[in-house]
């Protein structure tokens, strides 16, 4: 069966520090991969998605970037964090069809 792993679960980082959040999927090949952010009390905002290795689409211009170095690995990065980057980050995967997304357990990022 397919599983998705996301880490770390919680992160507190100072303003101006770098960021790297990692997500891996098991049990499937060539998944579509996604990064969402959820601000406190708000809905989910799509940040990036990838339909293949090296293929990254950005939905919202911002201080973050994403990379897909391997088929089932998706990384969210920042060179210098801002206070506004605080939030709950969710990784997800889906197949080529129109099925629902499967989400990781999320990372709570606090920038101080």
């Amino acid at each position, binding site marked *: 069966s397919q599983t998705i792993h996301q880490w770390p679960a919680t992160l507190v980082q100072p303003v101006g520090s770098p960021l790297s959040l990692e997500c891996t999927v098991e049990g499937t090949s060539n998944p579509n991969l996604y990064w969402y952010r959820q601000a406190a009390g708000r809905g989910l905002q799509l940040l990036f998605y990838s339909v293949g290795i090296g293929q990254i689409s950005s939905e919202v211009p911002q201080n973050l970037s994403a990379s897909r170095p391997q088929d089932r690995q998706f990384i969210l990065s920042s060179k210098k964090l801002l206070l506004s980057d605080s939030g709950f980050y969710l990784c997800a995967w889906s197949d080529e069809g129109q099925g*629902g997304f499967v989400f990781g357990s999320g990372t709570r990022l606090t920038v101080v």
Partner: protein
Amino acid sequence: AQTVTQSQPEMSVQEAETVTLSCTYDTSESNYYLFWYKQPPSRQMILVIRQEAYKQQNATENRFSVNFQKAAKSFSLKISDSQLGDTAMYFCAFRSGYALNFGKGTSLLVTP
């Protein structure tokens, strides 16, 4: 662009009662998929139910059912025999193509 609107920020229901959460969406697409996700306090996103737009029959999953009105672009979720474990944020979501677009959510509280 597709938009998803959930007009009820908060709702409350007593245990064993029935509650309906509303969702409307805006799209020019004819083929698409609709979903309801549940996010309990753990913040894990859990797929509750999905509906294909080309199917006229409303989807049902145990105590959860939808009322899909394609012409009205409405997709409400009915929870029957509410249980304390149903307390969560509920998100309506729309998929056409790669991305899944979410509403802002409805916070549901089930009381004893």
